[in-house]
């Protein structure tokens, strides 16, 4: 590699900065709305707030209900529980299924993979009614468990695809070496395969987490207890029949996005390698 010229570097930086600005502009707007004293949709070109108040954040974060319970705290907890459990359940199910699809030969394997993709093709809006009935049969209405199960399974097809793709790229010989070293199938899986698949696990976990973290229609439909609402449900409360409380909505949106952004930040090293495509060795 010969040293690139200063000019080229400058051009690259300029290009990237421009894209970053375009990327950040709408986000700055949300920040502006969250920090502006008014509660309305501000329609101006300037993405920086003219005056700053933390009032919206205060209301979003510190609001209490009639009986003085700190709602945000409970809803955050509920969100964390639901998303965390979804991630765990989803990952556990996806990891084992993906491993089987990647490593074992069995009839109907191709068909199974196709089916997974196919489930992604049916618009989700129409699934609400049947899902509700099924959860009722399972006595899982108004329970976080039911929500977790639905989220985990709806995220499964993508998770399985991604993990299977990654497992496919892991050299089989490592597993065979472990078998020769005396590992049982479960040990091979836990001690060799899983540690090796860390990047893909991280990304897949992030996806399951996001699925659960951002969803609100199902959560709002299923849950009947405001202290167990997940944060997006709480956020949607600012969108009323006649008006939207934009300032609070924006503040809430930022609060909700923050953990996901933090996760992205923490996992960004894995992100590149952990998506199926990234794992494919050329």
């Amino acid at each position, binding site marked *: 590699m010969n*040293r690139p010229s200063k000019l080229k570097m400058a051009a*690259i*930086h300029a290009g*990237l900065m421009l*894209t*970053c600005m*375009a990327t950040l502009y*709408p986000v700055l707007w*949300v920040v502006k709305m969250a920090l502006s004293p*008014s509660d*309305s*949709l501000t*329609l*101006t070109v300037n993405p920086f707030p003219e005056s700053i108040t933390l009032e919206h954040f205060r209301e979003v974060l510190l609001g209490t209900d009639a009986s003085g319970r700190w709602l945000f705290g409970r809803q955050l907890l509920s969100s964390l529980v639901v998303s965390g459990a979804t991630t765990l359940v989803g990952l556990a*199910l996806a990891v084992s*299924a993906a491993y*089987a*699809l990647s490593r074992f*030969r*069995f*009839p109907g394997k191709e068909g199974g993979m*196709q089916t997974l*993709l*196919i489930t992604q093709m*049916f*618009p989700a*809006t*129409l*699934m609400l009614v*049947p899902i509700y009935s099924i959860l009722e049969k*399972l006595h899982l209405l108004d329970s976080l468990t039911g929500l977790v199960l639905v989220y*985990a*399974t709806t995220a*499964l097809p993508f998770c399985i*695809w991604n993990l299977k793709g990654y497992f496919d790229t892991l050299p089989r010989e490592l597993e065979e070496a472990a078998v020769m070293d005396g590992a049982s199938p479960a040990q091979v899986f836990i001690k060799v395969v899983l540690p090796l698949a860390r990047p893909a696990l991280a990304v897949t976990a992030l996806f399951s987490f996001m699925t659960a973290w951002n969803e*609100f229609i199902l959560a*709002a*439909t299923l849950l009947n207890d*405001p202290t167990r609402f997940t944060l*997006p*449900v709480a956020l*949607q*409360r600012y*969108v*009323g*029949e*006649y*008006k939207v409380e934009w300032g609070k909505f924006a503040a809430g*949106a930022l609060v909700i*996005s923050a953990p996901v*952004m933090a996760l*992205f930040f923490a996992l960004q090293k894995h992100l*590149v*390698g952990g*998506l*199926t*495509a*990234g*794992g494919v060795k*050329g």
Partner: protein
Amino acid sequence: MKRLLALVLLATAWSAQAAGDAAAPLKLWHAYRGGEETAIIQVTQLFTAKTGVPVELLAVPYNAYADKLTNGIPHGAGPDVFIFNHERLRNFHAQHLLAPASKLARGDYFPNALEALEVDGQVYGYPMSLKSLALYVNTKLVPTPPTTTAELLAMLPALSDEKAGRFGFAYENGDFYFHAPFLFGFGGELFDASGKATFNTEGMARSLAFVKKLQDDRFIPQEITGALVKSLFNDGRVAMIISGPWFAGEVAPSVDYRVVALPTVSETGIPLKPFLGVEAAYVSSQSKQAEQAQALARFLSLGEASLVRTTVGRQIPADVAAYQLQAVKDDVLISSFREAAKNATPMPNTLEMLRVWEPMKLALRAVLQGGTEPQDAGALADRRYRALHRERPPDASPLPWLGLVGVMAVGGTVWVMRRPAPTLPFKRRYPDVALAATYLAPASAGILVLVFIPFVVGLSLSLFHYEPGQYSFVGLANFIDILASRGYSISEPLSFYFTLAVTLLWALVNVVLHVSIGLFLALLLKDPLLKLKGVYRVLLIIPWAVPNYITALMWKGMFHQQFGAINGLLVALGMEPVSWFTKFSTAFAANVATNTWLGFPFMMVVALGALQSIPQELYEAAEVDGASKWTQFRHITLPLLRPAMLPAVILGSVWTFNMFNIIYLVSGGEPGGGTDILVSEAFRWAFQRNQQYGFAAAYSVLIFVVLLAWSSFTKRLMRASSEVMG
């Protein structure tokens, strides 16, 4: 010892009694915010104090409220009492969600409020508050409010100065709810004698011509939204607006205003008659404590409750007695709205009313955005109405279908059995079957129950026709209607084929943009000597982390014609501002821009990973061979990226194909449904056009078929590319 025992006994006795006495709490659902929520909380506390019956409140996000009710109540998971506007009454009634208001005394309420809640002579729900439109006037700018349209028109030129961003008048003129007063004021009718909707009327044309002229004369702004009305009024840049009681809480303290009834149309002598909306407390048909639930609902609508709701919640009470109270009498705002509501027509709670909205909106926007003359708009609306209004197709016999399923099952079994016996025993061919089964079982069970069964149910719904409360089997009628493009010519927006073409174009353009931008950025970021790489990368994946409904709302605002950032930028660059949602091309472009912003980070990350997997030696070898950068890109990067990018591209295309949020929230299908894609069309049929679930399901099945074809095509692509790779 004895004392302790006695204490324990006492305690158990007390708790047993408490458990026996304490009535199970009544569940009350609402979607209130702010003052209204405070009021409802206080009111229920009053009720509990009076009757000893505890009430459990649940505030539901409005967006999910109706779904929650229609799903919850039939499954016994709903509330005892819920508060909702009367617009959906007929729908709820058809689904048997409502119990008649048994403790209701007609004399307690205004007659037009009761009328709104009546179905077949029976009143459902206790009317709580009235919602209707009135004129808010900035008293600094307009000391004496206009009482006729002639007066209004006379005032407007002095109050308006478009260049300075000042307007005499503003209201959400693209929304039929706000146009209805004009329609009625100009003598228009919504329904003919037989109760069917009519559009092509004299009043329609005249009212449209009137509002169009207001806009053409620049007395009112362009593309008005609620947010715009609010910010203009609060900034003192608009003198008069039309809005409802809910707006009072939004007016900035610095603005002096008063509320008056809407003016009378000078030509006809009829006042501008807004719709009357009635918010009522309904008792669920499934309530286990019907008596107490009725008592609660009644309590909410009358007396002390009314007073609290008026003073704290700023509602316009629907009970007559409330207006005798001094506190209410003194309240100028409340009594002005009461005055305004006297002219109001109760919005019909019929199913036919629900069919009016979309054609009306189409006509309104067609006129306001130009291109359609007011007198032609009625016909336009009428056509849309007839296309959307589907008579229930004749019932079909499910027998042939059951037969078909049977034959398929038998055929499948025979096919499996008759396949040439494999040379190796099963156990040999698949030594790991048992292990595979254990690994797969949990995921398969989950997917089967929560993904696959709903999916099959969804598929089979497409053979049914749904009218609130009942499904009837109609065979392929839904598909025939869609594929024969009933109501539209093939090349017209909203015909299946047009929507399909838009959808394909949408998916194609998006995927191409996502991939090329993602790849371009990945190539920039790949440079090993680049500084700040990590920072750029983090900033560039931010859009991925933002929930996409938030993204969509942001972008929608940015594309506003007069106040949006995009046009601001265009103007700053010396270009003409663009009215984004009035033309197909620009509306489509706006959707694409939003979705591109949302989608490129995923492709960028995938491309970064894929680029990393290309061995550096290949480039060095090419360099030695004297290949130019472009040649290297063409002959090394692209072919080697292909197998790594392809799965992501396929997945991306499926996601884009079904990317409902963006279309729905950014362009909303404007103009006239032209930018709707198949999923948003399915959504409209399911949730906005009288819950035609069957028809929506048929759309979904067609979407599914298209994607299936696409995926088998891409499977071939994948196979080809993996052959390339050996």
